[in-house]
Structure formats: C-alpha cells, structure tokens
C-alpha cells in the first residue's frame, strides 16, 4: 500500500513544487504520520486520498514558510487531490537513477522516494548504518538541486542509455533482497518483492521497451522458485538439488510469456537473454533434463552484448554439462585474475576440482569462497560443503 502511494505522492509533489528535496521530505513525513495515526485510529476508507490530502496540506504549510515558493502556492491550492499521474513516477525513477548520482545513492533514493522506505528500512535492507543512509540521502538531494539534475523522462534517443542505470538499480535491489531472503531478520522489508513491483511498474510506463519486460520476467522466474531455495532447516539448496514440485509452475509460465512478448519486439538485450536462460532452468522438469546446449547458445549471445567476466564464468559453469569438467575448468582458470575477489568464482572452481578428484585444491578454493562472503545463507552452504568434503560436490 505505502509502496503504491509513496512514488505517486512524491512524483505529484515534485511536479507541483519543482523541488525534489522538499517533496520527498514531505512524503516521508506524511507516511510516518499516517503510520502513527492509523495504528491508533485504524486505516481510513480511502487511504490513498487521505495521504494525498495530508501531503498537500503539509506542502502548503511548507510553502507558506518559504518565500521562494510563494508563487507556486496558488497552483497547489487549485490542483485536485491525488494528482499523481503515472508519468510522475516515471520521471521520478529517472531522477533517482540519474547517472550523475553514485550507484549506491541511486538505490537509496529509489527506495526512499519511490518505494517509500524509511531511513531505518533502507539501512536494514542494505545492511548499512542509519547514519550512513541519512548521509547518503542528504548528499544525493544536494546534488540533485545543485547540479540541476532534471525531473524528466529522457528523450527517445537518450532513453536506451538512461534505461540501463534504472534497470541496474532494480536488479541490484532484487539481488540484494533475493540473496538474503530467509537468512536475515524477518522484520526486514522484502527488497526482492519491491524490486519486482517496480519492474512491473516500469513495464506499464514504458510498454514498448523490451528490456524492462526481460528484467521483470527474470525476477519473476527467480521468485517462482524462491520457496524451494531453502530446506526445512532454513539452509540454502542449490538449483540442482531443489524439489521442483515446489516451483510455482503458473508463475513460471506467466514469466515465460513475458520473455516471449519482449522477444517479439526484436530488440534483444542482456536482461531478456538472462530471463531466457532462467526460463531454460525453470522449464526443465529435472536437473538432468536441463537444455544446456540452448543455455550455452544464450550465454554466447549474452557475451556478445555484455562481455563481462561474470557472464564468462556462468558460461563456463554451463559448459561443464556440454563439454565436461576439464574444458569448463580451463575456461574458468582463465578468469582468475578479474574474479579473484568474487566468492562464487571460487565456489564454482571448487566444484569442478572436486569433480576432477583434485580434493586439496578444491578445499582451498572452498575456504577462499567462504572467506569472501558475508551472506549468512551462502556461508552456511559453503561451510556444509566443507564439512562434507571430500565427498561433496560429486
């Protein structure tokens, strides 16, 4: 509910006030006041309208105190309540994810202004201190004002380039939530759900762009398998060992329809390809039935669009099932320099070394992986494997 309203409110107020800083603060204050009030008096019949009215009242108070905005007052008083066209939120997303802001600040601002997270919720979700988040918000707001970061949807010719950081923010949010779900404290707001909600919003606001659809499909494919990711003891289960009867088949089919809809636009992109790869996994009825050749083809296409070491690593992992462990390991070893600090690189290497019977090296790689991850569930999985070895991974 708050997530639906926060972006609408902020977007509407920014348009009216022409000031991101003030609008965003008012919405935060309003949401906090609403929380307190509703806890005491119960939720009003039309919470959205209640919030819009309260936010406008606060905005008017604020303007009265501030001579600079006096001329805008008249405008605000005649505007009908709840003036939040979807367009406002789209503009807001592009402001929050502007490349002039640091990647971390983009995530923080998006959570705050569009998803309506409080400072404490952001701190909890991103494992930062509240003071650090407050500082980041303060700096980012100043930069928006002082550097003149506009509140607008980019023109058609800039759109593709400007969409990239937006999608990156959403995917980062999603991963941050998805990887830690089930491992952190239950009071933490579910970042993955919020990210998927935002991606869905983006597909509605930009219906002719295929990459938001690809990203949304990718998220939904992951979420459809989410409940099988942890066993009864709350430990992480790898996809090879998951109970596939717990996957949400209807959600998988719906997500694959999204991939197809994006594909029909004939403008392939990295998120569509990653979604297609995830779809290959999701469609397989067992690990053995996975179509690795198809996955390898998709990784090759992905490498052409975004030639990163992590994509090459994932391709090497897929290569194992088509060309064997020796070929996969050789490919993986060539990535040692750029990926030495990445725990999944060492985890993947450990598995291949086990497979090839090189136990000492496998153990060393597992320890290296363990030393590199802070995530509780991932640590538990790696520790379990270390205990099980030398038989593990076979």
């Amino acid at each position: 509910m708050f997530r639906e309203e926060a972006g609408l409110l902020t977007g509407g107020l920014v348009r009216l006030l022409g000031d991101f800083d003030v609008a965003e603060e008012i919405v935060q204050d309003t949401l906090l006041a609403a929380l307190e009030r509703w806890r005491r008096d119960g939720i009003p019949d039309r919470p959205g309208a209640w919030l819009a009215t309260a936010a406008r009242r606060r905005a008017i108070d604020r303007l009265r105190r501030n001579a600079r905005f006096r001329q805008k007052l008249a405008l605000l008083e005649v505007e009908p309540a709840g003036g939040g066209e979807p367009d406002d939120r789209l503009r807001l997303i592009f402001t929050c994810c502007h490349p002039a802001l640091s990647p971390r600040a983009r995530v923080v601002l998006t959570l705050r202004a569009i998803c309506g997270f409080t400072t404490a919720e952001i701190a909890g979700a991103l494992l930062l201190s509240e003071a650090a988040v407050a500082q980041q918000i303060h700096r980012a707001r100043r930069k928006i004002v002082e550097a003149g970061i506009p509140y607008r949807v980019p023109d058609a010719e800039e759109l593709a380039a400007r969409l990239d950081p937006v999608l990156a923010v959403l995917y980062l949010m999603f991963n941050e939530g998805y990887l830690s779900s089930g491992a952190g404290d239950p009071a933490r707001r579910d970042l993955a759900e919020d990210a998927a909600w935002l991606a869905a919003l983006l597909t509605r606001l930009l219906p002719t762009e295929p990459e938001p659809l690809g990203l949304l499909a990718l998220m939904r494919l992951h979420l459809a398998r989410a409940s099988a990711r942890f066993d009864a003891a709350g430990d992480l289960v790898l996809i090879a060992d998951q109970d596939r009867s717990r996957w949400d088949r209807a959600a998988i089919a719906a997500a694959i329809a999204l991939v197809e809809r994006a594909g029909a636009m004939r403008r392939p992109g990295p998120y569509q390809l990653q979604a297609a790869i995830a779809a290959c996994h999701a469609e397989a009825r067992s690990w053995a039935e996975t179509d690795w050749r198809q996955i390898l083809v998709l990784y090759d296409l992905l490498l052409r669009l975004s030639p990163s070491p992590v994509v090459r690593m994932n391709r090497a992992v897929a290569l194992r099932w088509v060309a064997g462990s020796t070929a996969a390991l050789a490919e993986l070893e060539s990535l040692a320099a750029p990926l030495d600090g990445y725990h999944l690189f060492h985890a993947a290497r450990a598995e291949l070394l086990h497979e090839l019977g090189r136990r000492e090296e496998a153990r060393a790689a597992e320890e290296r992986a363990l030393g590199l991850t802070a995530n509780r569930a991932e640590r538990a999985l790696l520790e379990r494997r270390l205990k099980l070895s030398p038989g593990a991974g076979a």
Partner: protein
Amino acid sequence: MKYVLLFCGTEDDAHRYDTMSASALEAQLAQVGAWFADPRIRGGMRLAPGSTATTVRFGNNGDPLVTDGPFIEGKEDIGGWAVVEVAHLDEALAMAKAWPGKGVVEVRPVHQSEQG
C-alpha cells in the same frame, strides 16, 4: 542553469593535434568552431598546455610559494573551458557528449550564488 565544461585530455590527446595532417587539423578546428557557435555558450577558451603553467600555492602560514607546472600533477590536463547556460544537467551533458575534441569533459555547475 549555468555550467562550466572543462575539457581535459591526456598528453597523447594533445599530441594528436601535433601529428595531424593540415587538412585533418583544419577539419577538427572547424568542428570545434561549429560547436562553439551554439548560442547557449556564454564564453570559453582554449588553454596552452599544462607544461606552460606556473602554480602559486599558499602554504599553511599563508605565504605564497611559486612552483613550476600545473597544480595537479597527472596524466590529464585541462585544455580549455566553456560556460554554457541551459535548462538542466541533461542539456549540459548532451552538449558535452557532442564535444568534437574528445578526451574527457567535466560538467560542473556554477555555484548557486552565481547562477543569477
């Protein structure tokens, strides 16, 4: 809003001009000239290379110390600047992206007290 565009480049960028053929150099200068013809540009200049700079630095006691070279010793050097007046950052960034001189362009807003 007013922004200053700082045109930076490495020594290699600067040497590129030295080794260009006369016609290529002429074409390049024509492009830069066309870029500067934009009515949103309020002023600007090309600077002599950093090797010609002399720096006056005030120490902790407030006394000026004169040293040779530019104030930042590094591979990159400021080659020129332009002041532009546009609606917002995106417009300034679009101008910077169209800069024919290549290299690096820093887009810096003019201080709020000077925006006028």
